[in-house]
């Protein structure tokens, strides 16, 4: 399905009867070279790059529900690469570069808007920490800019600058950060993969793996057995449930994270802002709603809905930063399930089972990683070697002591 302005006019004049489904709805073949489990952002991106960059066309994406119905449709749409640690920053910066060229690459409007992200500073110690982080970002080729209070006041005059406990003392800005139309990312990758021969099989649940002599031969599904040369799991949120079918225990807990959107407002928030004294981040969607979120609820959950204490905490943080929020009505709140890993960083690696690969543990930062995750996973699946930006995301980093603990919290998933 191709789109153009001319086509829109033609369809408008002919009753919109000519639109066709954007991707096929094929029945599964008996075997594929690559089976990707999970039709979310990461799974579809993996299939897309396998076909486009590595010339692999015997690829299937198997999705339990409908594509894009999980976390790629539930996030707060922010993209950025403001990380500190060596294991992370090159990967996320690579991801941001892929975001910048994504619309041209898959020829689909993902509404990528580099409106900038601003992390606010409230203490002198935090300024030191953010200065260090900004330097680390620049060393890895990303952009970072330390702003003074006056510079922030010019862009965001409505913030609570003189709060008694948490006065705003500056900020770390990444101008290339911003937001993306999240559903369009799934749709764009799906269309691009489908056009290159990838079979996207929806409403097909993986019920087990066929593993013989330490080798994964394929997957048992609700539509029968499908043989696969290499099987890649990309079901972050449900990784624990899926990998249990291969008798694997993971360094991951599943937690619920809530997100919120307010009623539509006139343009008020030019970029993405994050509160430095609590956990609160906010941007304004193109429809006008303020999109915001904060901490996970903090207990294991697969429920895709949270509880009131987390909502109260997020709204309190929001009010501390933007007092005017008190006059805005909350429109919707929803929850998504996060793979909270033990060090707060993801895993893209082989498993101990031959032919079975794993991509997960994205905590609540998976959306921004979508393009690089797809590219790195496709690289690993196609070549057997990790992508140069994802060499640190190994299973055995916990055993070897090379954890990537961006927040310095230790093995406490609910604190990352």
């Amino acid at each position, binding site marked *: 399905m191709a789109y153009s302005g001319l086509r829109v006019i033609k369809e408008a004049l002919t009753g919109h009867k000519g639109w066709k489904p954007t991707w096929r709805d094929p029945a599964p073949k008996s075997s594929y070279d690559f089976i990707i489990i999970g039709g979310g952002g990461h799974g579809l991106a993996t299939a897309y790059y396998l076909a486009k960059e590595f010339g692999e066309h015997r690829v299937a994406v198997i999705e339990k529900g409908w594509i894009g119905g999980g976390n790629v449709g539930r996030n707060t749409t922010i993209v950025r690469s403001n990380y500190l640690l060596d294991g992370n920053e090159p990967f996320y910066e690579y991801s941001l570069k892929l975001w910048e060229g994504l619309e041209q690459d898959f020829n689909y409007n993902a509404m990528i808007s580099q409106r900038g992200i601003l992390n606010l500073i409230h203490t002198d110690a935090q300024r030191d920490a953010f200065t260090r982080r900004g330097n680390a970002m620049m060393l890895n080729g990303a952009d970072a800019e330390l702003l003074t209070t006056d510079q922030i006041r010019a862009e965001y005059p409505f913030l609570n600058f003189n709060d008694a406990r948490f006065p705003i003392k500056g900020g770390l800005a990444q101008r290339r950060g911003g937001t993306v139309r999240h559903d369009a990312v799934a749709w764009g990758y799906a269309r691009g993969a489908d056009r290159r021969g990838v079979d996207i099989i929806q409403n097909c649940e993986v019920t087990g793996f066929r593993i013989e002599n330490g080798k994964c031969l394929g997957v048992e599904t609700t539509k029968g057995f499908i043989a696969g040369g290499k099987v890649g799991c990309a079901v972050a949120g*449900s990784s*624990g*449930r899926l990998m*249990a079918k291969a008798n694997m*225990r*993971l*360094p*991951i*807990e*599943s937690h619920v994270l809530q997100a919120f959107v307010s009623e539509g407002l006139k343009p008020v928030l030019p970029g993405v802002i994050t509160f430095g004294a609590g956990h609160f981040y906010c941007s304004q969607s193109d429809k006008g709603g303020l999109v915001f979120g904060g901490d996970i609820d*903090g*207990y*294991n*959950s*697969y*429920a895709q809905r949270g*509880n009131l*204490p987390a909502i109260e905490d997020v709204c309190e943080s929001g009010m501390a930063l933007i007092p005017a929020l008190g006059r805005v009505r909350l429109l919707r709140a929803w929850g998504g399930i996060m793979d909270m890993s*033990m060090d707060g960083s993801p895993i893209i690696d082989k498993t101990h089972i031959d032919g079975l690969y794993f991509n997960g543990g994205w905590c609540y930062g998976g959306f921004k990683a979508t393009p690089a995750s797809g590219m790195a996973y496709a690289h690993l699946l196609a070549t057997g070697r990790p992508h140069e930006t994802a060499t640190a995301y190994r299973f055995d980093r*916990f*055993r070897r002591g090379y954890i990537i603990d961006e927040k310095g919290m230790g*093995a*406490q*998933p*609910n604190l990352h």
Partner: protein
Amino acid sequence: MIINHPLLGPRDSQEFTYLGDASLIERPDWQAEDADDQFHDYVYLRDNPAGEHRELWFHETGDRSWLVVTRNTLTHDITKVEMARDVARAKGRSK
């Protein structure tokens, strides 16, 4: 969520902090031959089930006792609350 504390009765979950899987009570023997492997699994790996989950909650703003709560991770229903002390003693721990 309301946690029915065995000593104090029903309390709001906001009074508690969460630690994680109740298997964290069972610290491995540091003198075992394979203590390295056991501690790796103990510290980093989790069953992470969808369904019934036994987990540790600490009554931080209450009586500061540790509880083992049995809760369904799909519905958040709490079906059983025990004192962690009793659970540990039942496993033969005396301290």
